[in-house]
């Protein structure tokens, strides 16, 4: 009987999941990923989290509870403090394993390595080996498993950068489909280019975001996500700021905003924010002000939480596309 490792489909799952999945599979585990977010998952997350937590954290708790019910042997909840020097994800990510342990009952064993590279990539090997130790005595095997995972992750990132969705990218990597077939299906002339800013776990979880990408496409917009730009461009544009943005995800969004405003390649910007998101509450404000000053293109900040009504959401999207249309004329 292989050991089962549960991975919650939430938060940075959309950034790193090929790496995590391949790594555990290479070590001989069966990886179980919680199902796509549903109303039930959301409600079960809301039940155990404090009111003031943001929607993605609530949903993550729901995924954890979903995995608990599946009786997995382990759940992987990394403490992702920082993945770049002098940068952070957000305080809630730093306290995530502790929050889970306080809020969720009947937990199986939790694998929660501390990943903190705010002082440089220290101890990467130690971290990898310490997780691997649970399943294998052979450090070489563990390291190779990580290396394989990392290669997959690199491929995955490059497909995201080419504009494939996370699901498409995974299918291509797993040879379930070829990149060309996906592109064939995409050949459609879109009238407007919309930059959709937001964290991956909001942009790629179609339940949370009420399927915003699909809806925009149906309204004739080409949707540009923040993953399309290279790290280099992001860094260069961030250097123009008086002070470095120390949140990794917000840094990417700011880089995108500044690049597209400069290049004048887009017709509108939508910023998708979770209610109660700290970094976005400030950065969203800054981005809004810059667009007003420099861009003179439609900008809309949409705040989503568990109470967002779909009817109102759709109304706003339609009105936004109308606004672009009027601006272009």
């Amino acid at each position, binding site marked *: 009987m292989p050991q089962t490792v549960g991975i919650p489909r939430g938060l940075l799952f959309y950034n790193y999941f090929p790496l995590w999945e391949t790594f555990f599979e290479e070590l001989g585990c069966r990886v179980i990923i919680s199902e796509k977010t549903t109303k039930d998952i959301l409600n079960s997350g809301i*039940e155990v989290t*404090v009111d003031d937590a943001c929607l993605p954290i609530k949903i993550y708790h729901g995924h954890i509870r979903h995995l608990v019910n599946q009786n997995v042997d382990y759940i992987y909840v990394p403490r992702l403090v920082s993945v770049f020097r002098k940068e952070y994800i957000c305080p809630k990510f730093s306290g995530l394993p502790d929050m889970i342990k306080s809020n969720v009952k009947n937990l199986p064993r939790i694998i929660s390595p501390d990943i903190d590279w705010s002082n440089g990539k220290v101890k990467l090997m130690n971290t990898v080996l310490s997780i691997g130790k649970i399943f294998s005595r052979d450090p070489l095997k563990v390291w190779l498993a990580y290396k394989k995972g990392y290669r997959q992750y690199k491929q995955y990132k490059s497909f995201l950068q080419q504009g494939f969705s996370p699901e498409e990218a995974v299918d291509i990597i797993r040879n379930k489909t070829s990149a060309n077939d996906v592109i064939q299906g995409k050949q459609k002339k879109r009238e407007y280019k919309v930059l959709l800013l937001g964290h991956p776990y909001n942009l790629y979880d179609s339940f949370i975001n009420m399927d915003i990408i699909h809806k925009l496409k149906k309204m004739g917009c080409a949707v540009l996500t923040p993953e399309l730009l290279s790290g280099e461009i992001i860094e260069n544009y961030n250097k123009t700021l008086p002070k470095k943005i120390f949140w990794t995800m917000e840094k990417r969004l700011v880089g995108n905003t500044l690049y597209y405003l400069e290049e004048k390649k887009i017709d509108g910007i939508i910023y998708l924010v979770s209610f109660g998101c700290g970094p976005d509450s400030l950065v969203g404000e800054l981005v809004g002000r810059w667009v007003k000053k420099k861009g003179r293109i439609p900008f809309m900040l949409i705040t989503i939480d568990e*109470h967002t*009504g779909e009817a109102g959401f759709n109304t706003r999207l339609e009105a936004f596309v109308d606004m672009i249309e009027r601006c272009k004329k």
Partner: protein
Amino acid sequence: MMNRNFFLGIDVGSVSTNLVLIDSHTNIIKKIYLRTMGKPIDAIQNGLRDLRKDIEQDITIAGVGTTGSGRSLADTIVGADVVKNEITAHSIASLSVVPDVQTVIEIGGQDPKIIIIRNGIVTDFAMNTVCAAGTGSFLDRQSSRLNISIEEFGNHALKSKNHVRIAGRCAVFAESDMIHKQQMGHRVEDIIWGLCKALVRNYINNVAKGKEIKGPIVFQGGVAANKGIKAAFEEYLKCKVIVPEHYDVMGALGAAILAKEKIERSRRYRSNFYGFDNICTGCYNTSSFECTGCSNLCEVIKIELNGEILARWGDRCGKWKLLNHSGKISNM
């Protein structure tokens, strides 16, 4: 009829003002439920007048307790021996009716509450101060919008055969979702039942979040009269919910019991009660002014009795406050 000792409890809330008169064995002699209508002093005076009607003349009020958001005002008007917050008052009243109660659900006009009691001691509580969805005021509004009397509201809910989900954390959104469901053609009783369930869900998620709800559960406050809400609670919590006989005046009952306890503890103590005649015939005048002493611009409230200043409050620095009922302004 011999002269016995009675204790009076007054609960001045934003929506209703309730008075309860108990004897020394905690039997309720009389209870009064009035709408505050934004005039708490009138409500207190009218309440006391009603209370005295058809009760023999020689009752002695041995102690008075006030509670509710207007507890300090009530204290100023009647001269209370105990001024307590409504969470404590409600828990005391619950315990007097159901001694082994472990959870109190209190939903009145506003600010729904949950009180967790273990072994007769309050161990935890929470109160929603964010939203009015699920409170009496909200239900009143909806019943009048649907043209159904509030008394009938609960019975309608029990007739429902189908499930309609009403969304919304906030009263305004819940209302617009209801209107939306009506426009889609759902039956009224299904909408009402859906609303009851939504309000219970809201309560559990917002007010009772993270609290361990154990039986016996006592459900009190004006909304407890609503059979639909009670049924929705029982369905959600999968256990029986007790609605006490005097569910609508539990805050006042708790205040009366607290006054009784205080008087009985300190034997030689005389009540501060100003007396029915003084209160009911008094001509109270409230006014407010903006203090320009600093940029806080506090709204100072002034209460005068027959032209004499009785009390002032609302100032953060304490310049206008009276420290006691001496009628003299302290030199703070």
